[in-house]
């Protein structure tokens, strides 16, 4: 396995300015480093405001880091070079409908990244879009649909199609499963696992659902107040958590859950 992504001492500060006074420095993320291998899944967990979304945004290039570097396949990513980054790292958001343009058809939205990043002619673009739609379990007919005409699960599939259309190496998903119904959520998880197997994509999931993390993640990164407090493989963290917070996050849902009661387990 080769290292796809390497994050070295990355951090983020915001300047909170009030009136004439010089601004106060607020630390959203203290320097952290980690790496990700090809086809691997990393889950970032933590409480609200612990900086987990900040990491996702920094990796996807939506925010510029205050310090530190991100390396993709050993090559340093320039914070402002979006052309370089957008082909390799893509992002999926929580609210699918809001992240899609309501005025443009699904096909046109999917063709847009191709328009900016390739020199293909229209025919080739269209056929690639249709092929991608098939890959995520939609029909070629959906090419002419508008986002509001689709159900929430289909909208999330369009978002995934948009993310994979340039055949990226890393996909960052920020709470992509929260707003979905259980059966649809399982469908989307299945789809993402299939895509990972077919295309060898590495995933970075930001989530607070312990069950999903246990199912899909290879490594877990636990954040607390902008600091990395624990990082390790899923098995190790479940079996032998070093921090109280890790234990809480990974077992919080089961504490109040009937499904984990002994009667059901038998």
């Amino acid at each position, binding site marked *: 396995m080769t290292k796809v992504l390497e994050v070295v001492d990355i951090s983020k500060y915001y300047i909170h300015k009030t009136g004439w006074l010089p601004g106060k420095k607020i630390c959203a993320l203290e320097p952290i480093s980690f790496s990700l291998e090809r086809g691997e899944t990393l889950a970032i967990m933590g*409480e*609200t405001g612990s900086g987990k979304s900040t990491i996702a945004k920094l990796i996807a290039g939506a925010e510029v880091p205050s310090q530190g570097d991100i390396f993709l396949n050993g090559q340093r990513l320039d914070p402002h070079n979006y052309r370089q980054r957008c082909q390799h790292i893509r992002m999926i958001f929580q609210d699918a409908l809001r992240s899609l343009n309501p005025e443009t058809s699904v096909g046109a939205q999917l063709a847009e990244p191709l328009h900016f990043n390739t020199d293909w002619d229209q025919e080739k673009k269209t056929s690639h879009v249709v092929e991608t739609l098939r890959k995520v379990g939609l029909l070629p007919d959906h090419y002419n649909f508008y986002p509001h005409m689709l*159900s*929430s*699960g*289909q909208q999330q599939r369009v978002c995934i199609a948009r993310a994979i259309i340039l055949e990226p190496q890393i996909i960052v998903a920020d709470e992509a499963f*929260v*707003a979905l*119904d*259980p*059966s*649809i*959520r*399982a*469908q989307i*998880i*299945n789809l993402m*696992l*299939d895509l990972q197997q077919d295309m060898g994509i590495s995933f970075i999931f930001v989530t*607070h*659902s*312990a*069950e*999903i993390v*246990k*199912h*899909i993640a290879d490594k877990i990164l636990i954040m607390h107040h902008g600091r990395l407090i624990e990082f390790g493989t*899923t098995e190790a963290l479940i079996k032998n958590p070093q921090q109280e917070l890790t234990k*809480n*996050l990974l077992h*919080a*849902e*089961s*504490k*109040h*859950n*009937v*499904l*984990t*009661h002994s*009667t*059901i387990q038998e």
Partner: protein
Amino acid sequence: MNILDIRNLSIEIETSNGPVRVIDKLSLQLAEGEIHTLIGESGSGKSLLAKAILGFINPRWKITADRLWWRQYDLLALSRAQRRQITGRDMAMIFQNPGTYLDPNSTVGEQLRESIPSHDLPGNILTRRKQIQKRAEELMHRVGIKDHDAILESYPFELSDGVAQKISIAMAIAHRPKLLIADEPTTAMEPNMRSQIYRLLAKLSAGDGMSILMITQDLTAVIPESKRISLVYCGQLMETGPTEDVMREPVQPYTGAMLSTSLFSSETKPKSRLPTLTGAIPTLQHMPIGCRLGPRCPNARRACIEQPPLRSYKKHEFACHYPLIEVDSHD
């Protein structure tokens, strides 16, 4: 004794394609001091049922029921004023996004004091105010907020989701209702906050004998204190019964699918494909006839175009022609 008794409730609403039965012959019983969990995906009519119980429904929509009783009152036969009186006295509801329905213009304290009934308190206006303040603080303690002074003075936007939900629970229990309807109280909340809210609701039910109708999307949100669950799909009742029985021996294919998708149930191997239902929930305009699960059901056959009657198996009831377990038809 059942304090809430619903038998064959149907709600018909007008759409562009003519009338549609959003809730189709749904039955539900709630005993005193019981927590009943109602599970269904979005669009299955569970919030509508809650609104029908409270009487918050568009008056043009047609509600029919064999029975919609609250204690000895037939809710459908009452006048609007009488119904309001019962709803106001005995029932309360909490919602999904506490931040959005607290008034952003007034402090938490003002809103909480407003919800405390003051007409039956003794004394004059000054002593009443003191009593109300005391009761507000007491309510804050009940829902597990210790620094009541700071929270009472703050505005809703200053609170986190969990605290805002606790405030809304405090407001809901201010007049000591008999029935609390919790409409997805913890969706999009952190796991730790989630279990705090669950614990609080369970405590309220056990301490005060308050009945709680808990509405959730997910089987993982069922708490051990909830003795009975009902699964609803597209307004039709799929399965109902004691929680442990239903979880151990799901009879309806829908229950089985929900259990297997909730990841916890079986020893699912990491990174394996999750068994789930195909397709998505139908829209109002395209409701299937007969059993509405039909197009997504793995067991569906020809007979499913007729709505199955409610049958019983051991302690639970279900509606299905082809259940997961062989059920004796004379049962």
